[in-house]
């Protein structure tokens, strides 16, 4: 099983900025955790797996519009004129 984790690459994918100390700490911990995860390689998987029985009936409600939108001002401090304010996106 491939490892260990390329911490900088994964942090970038996860939109996380990690301190040098966090990177150092995580590197050691991930090594132990991934070594433990390797247990799953031992399992003999059958050729086909019977999926679990699904719940009865349709899971989704009818596709009918309902009032439901929550005005952003009611939960966010970052709103101006009914829109979320963000830093400049276009150079």
């Amino acid at each position: 099983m491939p490892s260990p984790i390329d911490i900088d690459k994964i942090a970038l994918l996860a939109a996380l900025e990690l301190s040098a100390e966090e990177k150092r700490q995580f590197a050691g911990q991930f090594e132990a955790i991934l070594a433990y995860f390797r247990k799953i390689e031992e399992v003999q998987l059958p050729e086909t797996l019977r999926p679990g029985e699904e719940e009865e009936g349709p899971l989704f409600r009818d596709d009918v519009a309902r009032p439901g939108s929550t005005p952003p001002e009611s939960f966010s401090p970052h709103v101006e004129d009914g829109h979320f304010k963000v830093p400049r996106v276009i150079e």
Partner: protein
Amino acid sequence: MELCESPIRELHRRRLAREISTAEIARSVLGRIERYETRVRAYITLTTGDVLSGAEAADAKLARGEPVGPIEGMPLALKDIFITAGIETTCGSRILKGFKPPYDATVVERLKAHGLNLLGKTNLDEFAMGSSTESSAYGPTRNPWAFDRVPGGSSGGSAAAVAAGEALAALGTDTGGSIRQPAAFTSLVGLKPTYGRVSRYGMIAYASSLDQGGPITRDIGDAALLLNVISGHDPRDSTSARRPVPDFTRYLQGDLQGVRVGLVREIGQAGQLDPEVGLALQANLETLRALGAEPVEISMPSIEYAVAVYYILAPCEASSNLGRYDGIRLGPRAAGASDLRELYRKTRQQGFGAEVKRRIMLGTFALSAGYYDAYYVRAMKIRELLREDFRRAFARVELIAGPTSPIPAFRLGEKLDDPLQMYLTDAYTLPANLAGLPAVSIPGGFTRAGLPLGLQLMADHFREDRLIQAAWAFEQATDHHRRRPALS
């Protein structure tokens, strides 16, 4: 025993008989909070200002001869993962500090319809990721049975509040044991319903295929009472089951004559069992046998992989669910970011604690190109094997019994630097989540040093009735659930 230490059903009987008032109950609970909360630190947010008037309103209805339900006016607590309209909901994280949701979670709506008298929002591991409540951004909660020990997690604030008499009961959530393990560490009943039994709408998501809300109470009667209120189909949660909800209090009777109770042969491989936990388990199995149960050894070969499977899948789901916390819509925003991506990264760096970052990293890794099949897909397949193990087991037995946790409550800080050791303490609880099964932890004795231990019972999907009936019978034969911590 003080009023704040009594089960809700008993208090309700007594107020209907006019022996006590709801206001007296509320004063008893508020007195406990005033006296002990600075040491226990069970709550993130207290909303106690209206609790006495809420209790008096129930008394006024009683005085007018109007019907009053069993939880009406009774002071209860909610884990700070259930969103509450107008009341700050942090999920134990800095990233949601100041967030006041515009609406209530479905379970909160349902409790309100039954007269919820809310004491406050209880502490938890950040985003429910943890087994000790130490990863909360608002500081750790302490175990009322031993203040130098953790109350378990992630619903540790809910458990500590009830154990200390700072609430009559509380709701928690359970993704890998977060209701049951804190209940075991504090000698309470913690019931995780079947996946789909209780709506997840408005319950902040950690791992959506595993999360489930449920009660933490003093005895199984109160758990049945609260389960009646919070269960049932919710069109706003597409994973909510369209199943009729029985009156769970009907199962508070009977014995265990002829009930087959499975004991998992591979349990020793799944976690390092503390010898005192093993001794308590033997004694509890004797009690079950004396009540008429027939122990049956069962084999569940996949159970020893449950910890690895869970700690791959739950972080994968978390890494996706927590993508929404980026400083754009909710909570505080990092200052000084020059572009959007930097804003995301800085907000998440400042807003998330170490355990949340660890799980987001692990999940992002396991889902990333080149690793997805080896980790996520393989873990999902083994999850299916585990479900198959349970299907076979429940064709032979009605219940599966075992310890809730391999160890009693550990010391604050003891496992903080070794996340893997912390993860391994969930070995006995997380199989029920992976299979979507209902499970309950009930008070199952104490160590020589006086630390509580839990007995876990699992049942087949939607068979909470069997858990309640067995727990009831067990409670009639034991007095563990009547002991209270000597707070001093």
